[in-house]
């Protein structure tokens, strides 16, 4: 199920980066970056240390804004997004880091539940979903442990569980296996594939080219802040066409579970 085997018509663009440039310090950390992410896609973002992977991901979860160009995540556009909309966006995407970023004084259960609570989910529903989520990452039996009592691989599983707890349309992972040994790395990758097969698009940054090549997924090579190669280039024309049509963006808003639509919590609840 490689991306370019899917008919262009079936694809919906859920995230796009257009002519994005960013200066950090005195250098371009990113220069004229263009790519799009379709629903259900799995993409590796590969580049050496300092290539700009983390910077690019930060623009995508809108922790920082581009100096020029724009990022579109579902219905949210970096050039127009309001401060108060950023939390809404974050609840519709999942983020995973190299250093896990779990809260040390909360149990596995509480760490994952927090993401759902923050999204306004009630405790009954959280408990109900949690069995599912924690079983999926294979940590149900350790739900009452604190992160400190877990191995690195297990901690990363918790972080991934937290990232997907709200059924995000996109999962952004910044070197999720950077701190893990090869065996554990494989397990984490398999978990990410599993999540991807459930419909969540995954963009995973890594510097490990060899690891990534063996899977046959789309790979975006980042070099000195520029895209050096992108397998998806093959049918770039089609995608361009579909995304430049602004109506597509509006349709993107509407789709169901796996979309980064505008926050409709309030409307649905009332």
């Amino acid at each position, binding site marked *: 199920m490689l991306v370019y085997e899917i008919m262009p018509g079936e694809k919906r663009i859920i995230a796009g980066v257009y002519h994005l440039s960013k200066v950090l310090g005195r250098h371009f950390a990113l220069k004229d970056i263009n790519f799009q992410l379709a629903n259900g896609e799995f993409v590796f973002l590969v580049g050496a240390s300092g290539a700009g992977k983390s910077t690019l991901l930060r623009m995508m979860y809108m922790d920082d804004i581009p100096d020029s160009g724009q990022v579109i995540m579902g219905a949210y556009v970096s050039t127009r997004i309001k401060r108060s909309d950023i939390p809404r966006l*974050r609840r519709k995407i999942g983020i995973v880091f190299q250093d896990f970023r*779990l809260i040390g004084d909360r149990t596995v259960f509480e760490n994952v539940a927090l993401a759902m609570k923050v999204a*306004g989910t009630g405790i009954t529903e959280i408990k109900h979903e949690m069995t599912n989520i924690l079983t999926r990452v294979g940590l149900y039996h350790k739900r009452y442990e604190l992160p400190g009592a877990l191995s690195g691989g297990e901690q990363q599983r918790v972080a991934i569980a937290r990232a997907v707890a709200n059924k995000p349309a996109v999962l952004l992972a910044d070197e999720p296996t950077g701190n893990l040994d090869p065996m554990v790395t494989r397990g984490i990758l398999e978990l990410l594939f599993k999540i991807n097969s459930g419909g969540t698009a995954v963009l995973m940054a890594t510097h490990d080219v060899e690891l990534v090549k063996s899977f046959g997924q789309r790979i975006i090579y980042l070099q000195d802040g520029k895209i050096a190669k992108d397998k998806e280039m093959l049918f770039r024309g089609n995608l361009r066409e579909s995304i430049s049509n602004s109506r597509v963006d509006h349709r993107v808003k509407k789709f169901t579970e796996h979309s980064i639509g505008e926050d409709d919590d309030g409307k649905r609840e009332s």
Partner: protein
Amino acid sequence: MAGINAAKYMLGETVRMLKCGKVSNLISVIIMGFSLLVLVIFILVTLNVSMVIEKGMGEICVYVYLEDGVDNKITEEIRAELLGIESVRGVVFVSKDEALEKFREQLGKNSDILEELEANPLPDAFRIQMKPESNTSLAMEKIARTAAEWRGVDDVRYGKKWVERGEKLVKGFYMTDFALGLIVFLSVIFVISNTVRLSILSRRESVEIMKLIGATNMYIQVPFVIEGAIQGIVSSLLAMALLWGACSFAGRYLPGLGFFRFEGVVGFVVLCAFLGSIGSFVAIRKFLKR
């Protein structure tokens, strides 16, 4: 539903913060409690001193001495005139006999010398009590000038020097007190805001994570604000308790030392709750804006 979940979450988080941060909360509350103690000691000393001053100033009276052998009618006229003056609160007639008796008492065992007297040399007099708000040397001076002209009045006296000196002293006291109070107040604010900042800084990591998983500022702030209010309440109660202990101890050596009234204590605690939550709000706000 979402609102209820949010409220539940915020309360849960607050309870959690209080439970998990027991030690750091205790330290914060102790630091705040002691700096508030300095503030309440200051306020209490000021109140007590100003009470003593008020009392002292209240004891300063104007005496209107009558001519010897003035008849009742004129005496009553003078009384009525005096009561008609704006700044006068009350007038007490002190007969020459009463005055002598008082003098005798004051002399104590030396009162024998009075036996030598053939007649009472003291005059009848009116003692004037001023209204507290017009208890000034200026008002007294005015009464003295006016009354001295009246028929039947021999002389008007008041402790002119004392009143003037006292007034200067009081003015100096209040000015120094105000300046000191401002310094104490600002230091307390400084200490407390730093304590709050530190406690937020110690939780900066979890705040960062909260932001990454999409917590709104509201979700992050509210527990801190409630915690700030609770810290304000507990630390002000601590300060009041310590002060009360110190007061009942010092009261043995300083009889008449007054403590705050109940309303005062409640007002102070409420104010501290308010300041605590505002302080937390400002600190977390700054941190979130970065």
